[in-house]
């Protein structure tokens, strides 16, 4: 009876955590950044977005207040980081939808599309940054 699932789970196994992202291949980087950007979008982006929409749509005074903050360079830098999180999550999500439909699922195209996602996320952030600066 030594191989029942319960007794195997009880065996203490060594744990090895490699927290350095530098060794990850591109698809691994896309995956962990998908998770990090998703967490960022849940907090703080989502409550800030609702607060922004509520305040700006609520009154002209609230709209003006945000327009004043928007002129500040630190606000724009934070905004560009949020745009990266959204853009990376967007492009990586499209890649996962394609992989789910078995498009580009072999090793070489999957690696290429992962590099494309990483580049597109940063490129989108730079493009939006150039527009709003």
């Amino acid at each position, binding site marked *: 009876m030594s*191989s*029942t*699932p319960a007794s195997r789970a009880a065996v203490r196994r060594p744990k090895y955590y490699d927290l350095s992202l530098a060794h990850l291949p591109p698809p691994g980087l896309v995956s962990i950044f998908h*998770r990090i950007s*998703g*967490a960022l*979008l*849940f907090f703080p982006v*989502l*409550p800030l977005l*609702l607060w922004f*929409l*509520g305040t*700006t*749509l609520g009154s*002209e005074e609230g*709209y*003006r207040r945000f327009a004043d903050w928007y002129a500040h360079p630190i606000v724009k830098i934070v905004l560009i980081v949020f745009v990266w999180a959204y853009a990376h999550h*967007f492009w990586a*999500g*499209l890649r996962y*939808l394609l992989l*789910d439909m078995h498009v580009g699922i072999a090793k070489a195209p999957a690696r290429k599309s992962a590099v494309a996602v990483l580049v597109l996320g940063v490129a989108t952030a730079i493009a939006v940054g150039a527009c709003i600066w």
Partner: protein
Amino acid sequence: MVKQYTKNPVGAHYGTRGFLIQRFTAVIMAVYTIAALAVVVSRHPVGYAGYKALFAGAFGLFTLLFLAALLYHAWIGVRDILIDYVKPMGVRLGLQFIVATVLVFYFIWAAALFWGAK
């Protein structure tokens, strides 16, 4: 010799449902993202009146649909993160309760903003 697969393969398919909903909501949000960019570029709102008029009618309702999809998507995503990293069941369930409550609150907030916006 290859080890026998011992895990019980019969389940309620809750995982499959979450997997599918995550993808359906993603498609809604992707379409909205492109539509919102197109609307902002084509209508080019100026000032408060133009900005407010943007969300009156169909686009406001589409925004509410986007936010509803986002909140459901966020629930599945955050729950997956908690399942992966938070092992003590009591802490995990407590955090899940807080996240679910916050998301329901956000939905009420979003609905108050965009339901029947003029």
